[in-house]
């Protein structure tokens, strides 16, 4: 009985993990290329959630179609923020970029609060359920999982098969060398930054399929912390590492929840979040390059 429940929760965890992974790729991409930690990461996920909500509730647009819209909005936000602020801070001490991205997150939260209000909202997308024996899946979650995997593959192809992708990879390897070879390093930074933000906002759309009534301007905070744990699991600077880190994290989160729920006198949800913090510190202490990297 308990094993069946555990199996069901682990499968759920894997599906959620794929979306977590995709939601972290943007963070890792930005850190990998610009060496900037986007501390306002969760706020961009929140923006994606509100894009979905707005498109669905006012125009009746399918949340799947909201993904490209959210991606485009994210790219736009990324470009604007890169050219107004980040560009001037690339050479500044870390304190500056950390605070700038954090403040941007707060600014987005407050703007969304101003437009949509701060109560919890949601949308009702009916696409049915599927029973796989040990657990029942709403179809929306499966779509989100498949969408995440697809986006990860697309990013991989973009990186390895296009000129722009190669340019970005060369900047990651050696930005001075890339400059000498005639690559527009500033352009590569701008592109990677906005691509990272675009991916993050798009992931917000997919995440709403797991929390259809949990959309709120301050929902991003929890995701920021989770994304850091996942990014660190995957080695912090690799988007694919982040994707697999997400799968691992989904399994840990759901597995530990099932086990904590058996203990008397504790709150399993809070303990699960404490555990993710402990994992973060443990990895940073033992192997800061990530458990999934070979380095």
């Amino acid at each position, binding site marked *: 009985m308990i094993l069946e429940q555990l199996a069901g929760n682990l499968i759920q965890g894997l599906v959620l993990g794929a979306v977590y992974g995709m939601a972290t790729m943007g963070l890792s991409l930005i*850190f990998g290329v610009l*060496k*900037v*930690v986007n*501390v306002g990461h969760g706020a961009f996920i929140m923006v994606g959630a509100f894009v979905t909500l707005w498109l669905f509730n006012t125009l009746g647009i399918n949340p799947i179609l909201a993904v490209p819209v959210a991606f485009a909005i994210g790219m736009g936000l990324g470009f604007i923020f890169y050219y107004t*602020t980040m560009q*001037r*801070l690339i050479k*500044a*001490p*870390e*304190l*500056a970029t*950390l*605070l*700038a991205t*954090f*403040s*941007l997150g*707060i*600014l987005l*939260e*407050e*703007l969304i609060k*101003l437009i949509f209000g701060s109560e919890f909202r949601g949308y009702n997308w009916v696409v049915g359920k599927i029973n796989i024996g040990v657990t029942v899946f709403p179809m929306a979650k499966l779509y989100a999982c498949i969408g995440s995997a697809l986006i990860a593959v697309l990013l991989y192809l973009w990186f390895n098969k296009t000129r722009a992708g190669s340019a970005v990879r060369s900047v990651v390897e050696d930005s001075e060398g890339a400059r000498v070879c005639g690559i527009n390093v500033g352009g590569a930074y701008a592109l990677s930054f906005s691509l990272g933000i675009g991916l993050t906002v798009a992931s917000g759309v997919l995440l709403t399929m797991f929390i259809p009534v949990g959309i709120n301007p301050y929902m991003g*905070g929890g995701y*920021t*912390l989770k994304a*850091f*744990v996942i990014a*660190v699991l995957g080695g*912090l600077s690799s988007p694919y590492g982040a994707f697999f880190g997400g799968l691992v994290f989904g399994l840990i989160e759901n597995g530990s929840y099932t086990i*904590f729920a058996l203990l008397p*006198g*504790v*709150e*399993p*949800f*809070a*303990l*699960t*979040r*404490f555990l*993710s*913090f*402990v994992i*973060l*510190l443990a990895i*940073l*202490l033992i192997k*800061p390059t990530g458990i999934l990297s070979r380095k």
Partner: protein
Amino acid sequence: MKNKITKYYPLIPLLAAYLLLLLIGKNISGMWQLVAMLIFYCAMGQAFNIFLGMTGYVDFGYVAFMGVGTYGMALAITHLSHIKGLGILIIIIGFALAIVMSTLLSMAVGAVALRLRGAYFAIATIGVNEGFRFLIEGARIWNGSEGLIFTAQLNQILGRETASSLMTFWADIIVLIIAVLAAFVTLYYMKSKIGYALTALREDEDAAKVMGINVTKYKIIAFITSACFAGLVGATSWALKTPYVFPPEVFEIHYTIEAIIIVLLGGAGTLLGPVVGGLIYGISKYYLAIFMPGFQLLIFAPVIIIIIVLFPEGVVGMLKRRVKGSALAKFII
């Protein structure tokens, strides 16, 4: 000998500012609430500055130290209130417990996080407050998510009258004393070997290491000192002023952000910065709350970005550069 006295000149504008605050608060009716808030912000900034300002490391989980300090005081009062005749001594035990607890937490966090640099340090610390909060709530430590309420105990120990004057007036005075103490310590560190080592570390950590400076040791000193003062501020401003403690409130990341804004506004790593920053931030927050309620963060967020991009040195940092070489230079650091 003369050098020893001039060393303490910068404390003159600092103490003058605090004295002025006290006079305004005592003599103009209705101002004490604002003054108390300003004292709190100055104290928090002064405490945080010892670490952030002197090392350049950003600790996003800073509020956790204030939180455990609050719990230190709360635990002392709730657990010792049945002992007769402790009286005011219980507050002193509370402060001692606050220091012990914030020191222990900072040693635990520091042992992991201070091995890391820059971005990795920030990531390691960003979850400390949340992690600690979820530990308290999840494992139901110290009454879990229900928190601790100890107004009755405080009244019973000190008497209703003393307790209420402690909450409304003396707690603020204690915070002020903590702020002044933190300023003394900052100045002492700045003018000693610790300060020079930390400056070297802030400018170029690798070079400092090569020069034979034990950077880890000085980072730990600054980290623990800063955490202790944070614990004291929490124990006074939160536990004594409002005798209850709820985990989501005392581990709220926005206090960390306020501390960072204050330090940055005034000028990171300067002695007078946190006071200037605390006053500017506190006064603008107070009046924005009156005239534009609900819009404070919406206004502060872009302001921080602008400060980072255009005025990274802060007010005192710029002032310091202006007065360099003049007679005023002795007073402003």
